[in-house]
């Protein structure tokens, strides 16, 4: 378990931003989620990726066990106004009140207010530069 000087000891006692990237619901297109996960990895975050078809309980439970600072949800199916409130509720019921939430995918402009009211700090739609997502995470997450 020696850290070689070339991969410096900074990682050892450093504090990393941990992000859960999850895909709720039944659509199986996870390319966007994977691209975001990869971008955050390249940005230096530790990204927990749980794969497709996650239920609200599964997402909240993974967030709890992994003690993430940020949860990012990817959705293309149009069921966000159905699923997201349940995810938020599951997170809250586990005491995860301070987790930063963002989402991305096919999300109509008119749903923005509803999502913000639910606690989502950002919505990233198709065409977003991944750098903006990384910046958002660094600006909003308080890793400890």
């Amino acid at each position: 378990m020696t850290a070689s000087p070339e991969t410096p000891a900074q990682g050892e006692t450093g504090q990393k931003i941990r992000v859960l990237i999850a895909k709720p619901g039944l659509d199986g297109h996870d390319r966007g989620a994977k691209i975001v996960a990869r971008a955050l990895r390249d940005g230096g975050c530790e990204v927990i990726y749980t794969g497709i078809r996650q239920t609200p309980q599964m997402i909240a439970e993974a967030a709890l066990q992994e003690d993430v600072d940020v949860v990012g949800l990817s959705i293309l199916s149009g069921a966000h106004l159905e699923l997201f409130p349940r995810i938020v509720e599951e997170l809250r019921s586990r005491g995860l009140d301070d987790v930063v939430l963002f989402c991305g995918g096919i999300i109509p402009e008119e749903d923005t207010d509803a999502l913000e009211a639910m606690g989502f700090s950002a919505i990233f739609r198709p065409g977003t530069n991944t750098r903006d997502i990384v910046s958002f995470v660094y600006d909003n997450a308080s890793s400890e």
Partner: protein
Amino acid sequence: MSDLIERFLAGERRALSRILTRVENGTPEGREYLRQLYPRSGRAHTIGITGGAGSGKSSLTGSLASELRKRGHEVGVIAVDPSSPFTQGAILGDRIRMQDLVLDPGVFVRSMASRGALGGLAPTIDDVVAVMDAFGFPYVFIETVGAGQDEVEIAGTALTTVLVNNPGTGDDIQALKAGIIEIADVLVVNKADRPGADVLVSQLRALLSLAPSEGRDIPILSTVATTGDGVPELVDAIDEHRAWLDTSGELDRHRRQEARHQVLSVAQRILLEQIRRETSEETLGDLVGQVAGRSLDPHTAAEQLVEQGQAV
């Protein structure tokens, strides 16, 4: 006693999770938690699952945890995936193979990034294992990063080391080489429904017959992690190894060895951190330049660095 420790002792998973983060990060707060919780550890059967990338470690860990749940035991899992050597970021994807367990309140899965550690684990793995142990899980699995030939650290961290092999991944010369195969307490041929599985089992058996016996035969089990075939037998073999540790006196020897390794590796880390703290980038850069230019050898440079670090 802090609120978080109280909640931890009451069995609250959120408290476990938060303490794990602080202990993993090695913050002063994390060290204090570890100091308080360490005396409660040492009860769990810690099981290392190691093997090549794609050998089925995560799936097998998931299947083993399911089998233990059927037998009424709670299970903790720590799954390590590699950090990028360039950005220090990581994708931790082992949970994908353990979906069935996510909502089971008797299972807790935690992903860890290797954060620059060599040897297939993470710098603070032993501390994180101790916290899971102290929480009261009777079984704690530690899944290494995909290991090749020489990632043997797991044998010092876990009481039982399971090495996962696959058919069709090399000839018997690979198995003859020193290194990872020597640390296995239990050998598994996973994906045993694929061609070549029987040949691999007999090759491994022939190889083991040449090794000096340490009073115990190393079992070789065939599994198909995705269907659960062979998994109950593997759980039995893991339990049998633990029973052997208890009765043979090997357990004490293992614990002493593990403690020695941990004390020395933490001491090494403290010294390295101290040297880096006491050395200016300028001094380090100067030494590095001389070594790169071949006017100074690395040993002399390192000695100078250590002397300077201690002089302050």
